């Protein structure tokens, strides 16, 4: 598929004797929303960490296609460092919010643009690069405006309500100019109302920023609502893939979630 932005081949992660993710073959197309679901401890976050460079897979490879051109070739990013992968255009959020706690909403978003700074330390400090700095500030303000955070711009990020902190974390990831956005449980801890808002928000930014989205999520209504394809993990194994409708009727998925038949596990 020439339109693939992210692909993992037989990605496997072992911690000592524990195989957290086994033979994981994922494919995310351009402008697609793909979800990874699975019970607690299924290896979803580990899969995320393999892709984003937090871990190096024990076996297998990860390919990412940077840029937006159709001729772009996939690049093997296996074992590259997290910051290098982000600079290629893959941004992520975290399951437990990781904002820069001592800083304001505005500053958090400004930091998201640091990876694009061309000025060296010297010209940045002496003010020779004032044009770049001004452009960064402008862009941060635009983003804040666009994502509806303008009324809390100068507030300390930790003083925001929970739902807005999640939104800010996504905004900060968007500030890095990604082509692929990875969301680790974006609706965790949200009430149904907030979840509905979030669903709309993800759709919106996907269109606005021409993004592909890969997300881990537990809220089934959210997952079934917006994802085009779903991967189901259980004990590190991929037990099913397909469209939301297919997944909903898959007996193995139902088993994994409800745990009806213990013999089904090896």
């Amino acid at each position, binding site marked *: 598929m020439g339109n693939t932005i992210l692909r993992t081949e037989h990605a496997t992660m072992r911690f000592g004797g524990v195989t957290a993710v086994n033979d994981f073959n994922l494919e995310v197309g351009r402008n697609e929303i793909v979800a990874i679901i699975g019970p607690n401890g299924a290896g979803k976050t580990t899969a995320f960490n393999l892709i*984003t460079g*937090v871990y190096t897979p024990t076996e297998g490879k990860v390919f990412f296609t940077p840029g937006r051109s159709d001729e772009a070739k996939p690049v093997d990013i296996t074992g590259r*460092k*997290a*910051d*290098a992968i*982000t*600079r290629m255009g893959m*941004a*992520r959020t*975290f399951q437990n919010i*990781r*904002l*820069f*706690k*001592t*800083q304001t909403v505005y*500053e958090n978003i*400004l*930091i*998201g*643009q*640091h*990876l694009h*700074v061309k*000025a060296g*330390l010297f010209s*940045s*400090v*002496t*003010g020779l690069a004032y044009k770049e*700095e001004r452009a*960064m500030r402008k862009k941060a303000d635009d983003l804040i405006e666009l994502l509806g955070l303008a009324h809390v711009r100068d507030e300390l990020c930790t003083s925001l309500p929970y739902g807005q902190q999640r939104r800010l974390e996504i905004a*900060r*990831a968007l500030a*890095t100019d990604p082509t692929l956005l990875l969301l680790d449980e974006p609706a965790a801890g949200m009430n149904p109302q907030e979840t509905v808002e979030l669903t709309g928000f993800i759709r919106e930014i996907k269109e606005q920023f021409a993004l592909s989205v890969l997300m881990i999520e537990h809220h089934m209504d959210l997952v079934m609502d917006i994802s085009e394809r779903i991967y189901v993990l259980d004990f590190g194994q991929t037990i099913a893939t397909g469209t939301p409708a297919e997944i909903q009727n898959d007996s193995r998925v139902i088993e994994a979630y409800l745990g009806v038949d213990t013999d089904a596990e090896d």
Partner: protein
Amino acid sequence: MKGNKRDFWLTVIVLTLFAALVILTQTGAVAFIDSYQIHILNLCAIYTILGLSMNLVNGFTGLFSLGQAGFMAIGAYVTALLIMAPDVKEQVFYVEPIEPWLGALQCPFWLALLAGGMLSAVVAFFIGFPVLRLRGDYLAIATLGFAEIIRIIFLNTQTLTNGSMGVKSIPPTANLLWCFGIAALMVLFMLRLIHSSYGRAFKAIRDDEIAAEAMGINLFKHKMYSFILSAFIAGVGGGLMASVVSAITPNLFRFTLAYDILLIVVLGGMGSITGTVVAAFVITAAKEWLRWLDEGFSIGPLTVPEIPGLRMVIFSVLLMGIILFYRQGFFGSKEFSWHGLFAFVRELPRRIGRLFHRDKKEAA
């Protein structure tokens, strides 16, 4: 915008008055400040520089580094040996003669300071490779070890540093203008740095390393920047110190020196430039003022004999008190602003009023 203009002019006026005061004091026009007090003021400015150096790494980048004494020693020795006249060096190195190339070398003070800072920075670059891979307490131990290694090396390189006898008769070039000028320059540099994109990246690393890396910030590179800049500043501070105290030995740069600076940074507030400046002056001045504690004193019937070092106990207790009850220090991570000052002054009567009010309530 109106407020901005007011603040700008207020800043200009205060800085001009301050500069005038420093210049007048230096020329001896301010009669009530004697040479001893000038010496203390010089030390205050130098400790400001050292405090900034440590705050950059510890307060802004979140790296618990205690290697400041080592970088100061490098800066101090380089500066001292570069500004001394060749014949003076010959007299000072009477046990074993100084290396001929070093003995002949002499350069202006500013160049010597720059060279001291640069060498510190170069050394920081090389030890940064292994050391900056460590985190937290391990980094503190490794950098402390580095400072001790520098001291031991300087004790044993007789032909370069004159070993344990140290270097005497260093020209007292560093006057108030030098010390306060460079301190002001460093404050300005730090302000610019912290408000630049790199400064924001440093703070991001301090707040959350994992998130900073996910934001595309190369952790090692930015930690290295911070470490090198801090070493440079410490080296320059050490160079000024050498000229102000006029005699240095390796034992002047024991690891306890790092604690003196740490006290300034913690008391002022980790991550506050204002705090560091204020705390540097308060602590350096208090250290001199409390000298009477060391000489023995009596409070009524209680007589305390002469105990050298008693005043340092006060500072240790102070440090413990801060850590236990007032961890954010004077300023936390806030900075001085005119707006903040005016608000504070406006609030002052009410605050004092509240103090009395509460007293009355408790009495009743």
